């Protein structure tokens, strides 16, 4: 039962990734792209968790921690740079 569910969930997450990439490519403003990148990193954390379940290796959860931290830092830095309009 679990392999079927893992395949279904990975398919849903892949479709969500495709939809988010469409928004990333055609987002009218820069902030739209930042929102799409934030959602892509969240989707990547979810995929890492599914992969850890499907391979029975719990070490992948540490990658999820690191990716969550780096995604928050990246989003914050990008928003800070965007809000100041490039001025220091």
């Amino acid at each position, binding site marked *: 039962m679990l392999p079927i569910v893992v395949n279904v969930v990975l398919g849903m997450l892949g479709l969500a990734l495709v939809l988010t990439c469409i928004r990333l490519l055609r987002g009218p403003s820069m902030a739209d792209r930042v929102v799409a990148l934030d959602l892509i990193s*969240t989707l990547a954390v979810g995929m890492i968790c599914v992969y850890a379940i499907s391979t029975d290796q719990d070490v992948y959860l540490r990658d999820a921690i690191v990716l969550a931290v780096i995604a928050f830092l990246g989003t914050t830095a990008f928003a800070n740079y965007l809000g100041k309009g490039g001025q220091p």
Partner: protein
Amino acid sequence: MITTVVTSALMLFGASFMFLAALGVLRLPDIYIRMHAATKSGTLGVSGMILASAVHFGELGVTTRAVLIVVFLYLTAPVAAHFIGRAAYQTGAPMWDRSVVDELRGRYNAKGALDSAPETSGVSSGSEGGDSSS
């Protein structure tokens, strides 16, 4: 057996919420509405995934790590969303043409800092025509 069922249910819950988040990011009309889908629904979905892995492994270390990730996501997702929203407003991202109220109108000066403007400046109670912030 029961562990498998609970894990599958949590994974499907999380995946459906994350799919809804992606669909909302693609389909909703402007950026301030899109951020609702991306931050709230996405965070709920990924917390479902992480709790599914915690149930599947069922060890103390893994559960502690999973709870750590969930708490971290719940603390940082609103902060990141607030930063993105403020940056979008400062750069003048257009609002939906059917938006009703823009309480920050005229309260940012040219350098992007928040003025101490008079209290009544912002609210422009909209009729049907709406207005987009420039």
